[in-house]
């Protein structure tokens, strides 16, 4: 048996903070990047951060069915795959018409 000092633990708060940091970085990427593909990378990072949080709750918190958090995470991964496919197709389609994927140059709706 290890002495008490060496019995390290990962508290739930630290996992949640990891998720929050990843979400904040993803939000920054999605709001600030010029290239539409960079914006997409930020969105994917945010979805990953949400999954970390879901799995942390599934692992730690009292629940009658603790595995439901993992089911939710798989649904999030599924939707993220569909979203990535459609959004990248949109980026390629916009590039065909306008020769750019920079979101600040795609401003036909500006009044």
């Amino acid at each position, binding site marked *: 048996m290890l002495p008490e000092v060496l019995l390290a633990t990962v508290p739930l708060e630290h*996992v949640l903070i990891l998720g929050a940091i990843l979400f904040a970085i993803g939000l920054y990427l999605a709001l600030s990047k010029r290239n539409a593909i960079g914006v997409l990378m930020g969105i994917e990072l945010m979805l990953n951060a949400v999954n970390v949080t879901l799995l942390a709750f599934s692992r730690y918190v009292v629940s009658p069915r603790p595995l439901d958090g993992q089911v939710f995470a798989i649904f999030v991964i599924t939707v993220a795959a569909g979203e990535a496919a459609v959004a990248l197709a949109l980026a390629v389609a916009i590039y065909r018409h306008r020769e750019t994927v920079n979101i600040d140059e795609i401003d036909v709706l500006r009044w």
Partner: protein
Amino acid sequence: MITDTGIVIAFYVIGASTVVSALMVAAVRNLIHAVLFLVITFTGVAGIYIVLSADFVAMAQVLIYAGAISVLLVFAVMLTPTGDRRNAETSFQAPALVLAGLLLAVVVFVIYDTDWRIASRGQFTTTASSLGRAFFSPYVVPFEVASVLLVAAMVGAIILTQDEDEEAGHAA
């Protein structure tokens, strides 16, 4: 609680490298390098899933994110050959930084302010068979809706990227 010393060390090492590579995605000046750092981030997140004893989700993460989505991202960069590769920021950089920092501060405050009801159970053993049972009894309707969504996304992606000249050629 997670108490195994090796797993605790693994969590902090993987967590730190995941955050660093996510920051590199924002910092590097080449779009392809950003995609490569994003792959490292996805793989690190898969490691975090394993620490949280979600083996099936970790496998799905490696297959779908580190495999498929990163390949899609590289393809999208390659299919926009004269596009901007500088991974630059718009004029919204400073407000975005402020907003992300504020959000992080609020979330960290809420995390420490909330009284989480921590369960005393140990880690899950294998999750794949119980996940399969969950998908086919309580979650069967969302499961089928997800397959419809994937078909719609696939058809939409094909139609969006279809070449217009090629389309006309088929009609003629």
